[in-house]
């Protein structure tokens, strides 16, 4: 099954955002990326696959190694959208609502 991946779904995950930030400064191999996380290696591989499928990451073969680097054009497209910012506020406000609702019933 080759479903088209949703970019925003891809960056909604904190580990995947962390991966993007890691490779933003330099191209890295899967092993080097995985070394930065406590997560199991196959899980990191899965994240890399998703990010590659939605074109946020690109692969370059260098000898026997495959390097992942950021697709600047795609990242710009994402940055142009306000969605991540909106999502941050949405999460905060939802939390505010939940907390204050408890407050309301406690009274």
């Amino acid at each position, binding site marked *: 099954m080759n479903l088209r991946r949703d970019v925003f779904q891809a*960056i909604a995950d*904190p580990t995947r*955002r*962390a991966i993007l*930030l*890691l490779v*933003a*400064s330099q191209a890295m191999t899967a092993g080097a990326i995985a070394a*930065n996380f406590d997560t199991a290696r196959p899980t990191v591989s899965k994240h890399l696959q998703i990010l590659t499928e939605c074109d946020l990451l690109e692969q370059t073969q260098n000898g026997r190694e495959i390097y992942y680097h950021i697709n600047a054009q795609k990242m710009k497209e*994402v*940055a142009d959208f*306000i969605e*991540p*910012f*909106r*999502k*941050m*506020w*949405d*999460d*905060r*406000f*939802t*939390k*505010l*609502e939940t*907390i*204050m*609702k408890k*407050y*309301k019933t406690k009274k």
Partner: protein
Amino acid sequence: MEQKTKIHAEDGKQEMVITREFDLPVELLFRAHVEPELLEEWMSNPYATAKALKFEGKKHGSYQLESTDAQGKVVFRSNGVIHEFSPNKKIIRTFELENAPFGVQLEVYEFSGLTEDTSQLRMQVIYESVAQRDQVLKLPFAQGINHAHNRLQEVVITLK
């Protein structure tokens, strides 16, 4: 699905407007914004704990907030001055992220009751320039991941 939080940021303008409706009476929505311990609770997330170092909810009052990661390391500090403080109606304040190149922003919070149990918040945020606003809009992409990886923090700072 209808989005509860809406953001309007027109191209080429140095402001943005954030609106959100809440299933809360306007009094509780307002309190969440002016009582330090409540503010700390909803501003915190799994990667960062918010703390109000200072919070004077009154005209000419000032505030300073701090965010720390799981290791207790300070991720960022922010501060500002309150210019208008009208309970359950309006707050006008400045906001500045310390040691960050985003300048000082002016925030106008308007609270309004819709029904007895629902309310709306309209937040107008004015930046010093269009460029600064756009930079801030790109920022949260890097936020929310302020966890154990110290290296990441350095990367975030260099991200333009």
